[in-house]
């Protein structure tokens, strides 16, 4: 419990809540999209660089099992949404599936927030753990688009055949994954130590605090959109992050027992499972499931999903890790 209290005073959470509060009070403070995107770039490049530099000597065979788990969890989350949210009578099936896709996908900002907490609590994790991101993100988005098309086909017999490779490519080309993978490649293949230490690393926490403020303001401003759709989206968005995170924690625990996956790595797996995409996912879904209503899935993810994933999810998994390991 005291972990949660302390957590609420941590910059990450404090700025997130601060953003929600000032948006609720009607602030005219605006941080422009160009700055927002640059911050996301800086954070994910930094996460990637660190991962890339650290895995130069890592045994990447260790990564196979967690990566497989990430794929399974990403697909699983969408399947769960298909038989829960998407089945509710008040919810259009395609909206439910798209929402499941977004919650199966991964949020770079939530991942960065978790890394800051792990680092400040000195909890170790495999340095390739952030690289699990695409292994969960892409399968979830692909699965959602495939399921939606199957649904349309079943209903109308008109859906076209889904081509999977373009969706994967589109995901990899998204700005968040591009920055993360670029960072990994640069860290692995070149010597970016000097700029990492003088620039990307020192600015990491501060930029994250600004990003959290933006996410908070954004969360509040999207609530109105969420109100226009079925309340089930809000319910799903509040519950799903924790359910997904705990499921992933369970699988991660299994990997810990089987192959020695570290507690910190298990937390990261849980965090990316509990997070929902806020940058790259929405446009991919807008193009892949055009009939789904973006107000439903973006509203659910940004307004409720991400705050829950950060404010409740991250401290929960860390507390759990300290309890069970």
């Amino acid at each position, binding site marked *: 419990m005291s972990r949660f209290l302390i957590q609420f005073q941590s910059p990450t959470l404090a700025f997130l809540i601060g953003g929600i509060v000032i948006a609720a009070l009607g602030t005219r403070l605006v941080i*422009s*999209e160009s700055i927002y995107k640059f911050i996301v770039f800086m954070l994910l490049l930094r996460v990637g660089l660190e991962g890339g530099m650290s895995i130069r000597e890592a045994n990447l065979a260790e990564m196979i099992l967690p990566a497989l788990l990430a794929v399974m969890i990403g697909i699983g989350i969408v399947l769960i949404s298909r038989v829960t949210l998407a089945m509710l009578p008040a919810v259009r099936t395609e909206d439910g599936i798209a929402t499941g896709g977004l919650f199966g996908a991964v949020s770079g900002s939530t991942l960065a927030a978790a890394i800051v907490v792990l680092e400040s609590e000195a909890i170790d994790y495999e340095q390739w753990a952030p690289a699990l991101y695409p292994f969960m993100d892409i399968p979830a988005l692909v699965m959602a688009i495939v399921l939606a098309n199957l649904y349309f086909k079943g209903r109308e017999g008109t859906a076209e055949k889904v081509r999977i490779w373009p969706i994967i490519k589109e995901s990899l080309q998204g700005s968040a994954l591009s920055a993360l993978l670029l960072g990994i490649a640069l860290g692995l293949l070149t010597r970016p130590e000097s700029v990492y230490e003088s620039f990307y690393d020192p600015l990491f926490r501060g930029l994250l605090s600004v990003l959290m403020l933006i996410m908070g303001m*954004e969360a509040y401003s999207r609530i109105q959109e969420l109100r226009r759709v079925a309340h089930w989206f809000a319910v799903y968005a509040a519950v799903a992050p924790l359910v997904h995170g705990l499921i992933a924690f369970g699988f991660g625990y299994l990997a810990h027992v089987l192959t020695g996956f570290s507690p910190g790595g298990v937390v990261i797996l849980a965090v990316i499972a509990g997070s929902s995409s806020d940058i790259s996912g*929405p446009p991919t879904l*807008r193009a892949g499931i055009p009939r789904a209503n973006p107000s439903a899935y973006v509203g659910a993810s940004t307004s409720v999903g991400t705050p829950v994933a950060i404010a409740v999810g991250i401290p929960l998994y860390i507390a759990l890790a300290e309890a069970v390991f």
Partner: protein
Amino acid sequence: MTQQATRLVIVTEKVLTKAVAAIIESYDASGYTLIAAGGMGSHNTRSSGEPSVLDHFGNIKIEVITADPDSAKKIADAVSERYAADYACIIYIDPVEVLYSHRL
């Protein structure tokens, strides 16, 4: 070289920019002009890029001048058929008189 022409205007979601541009090019229009826009329509409020930092769904206003009114209508039909059901969209035409253009 004053010339009667048709100005076709399509206001739709920014994600469709490339797709609509491809349709326009496929109908041999001599060019088009793109303008960032926000708006309100049947699909809720959309921002002009300014307020909401996470707005992936800003609008774009695309203008095409064609010498032949028919090709304007054909472009409009192609766009509306393919995208209008699922995306925010309004399309209108307006006769104009072109005073200068490199080609039309």
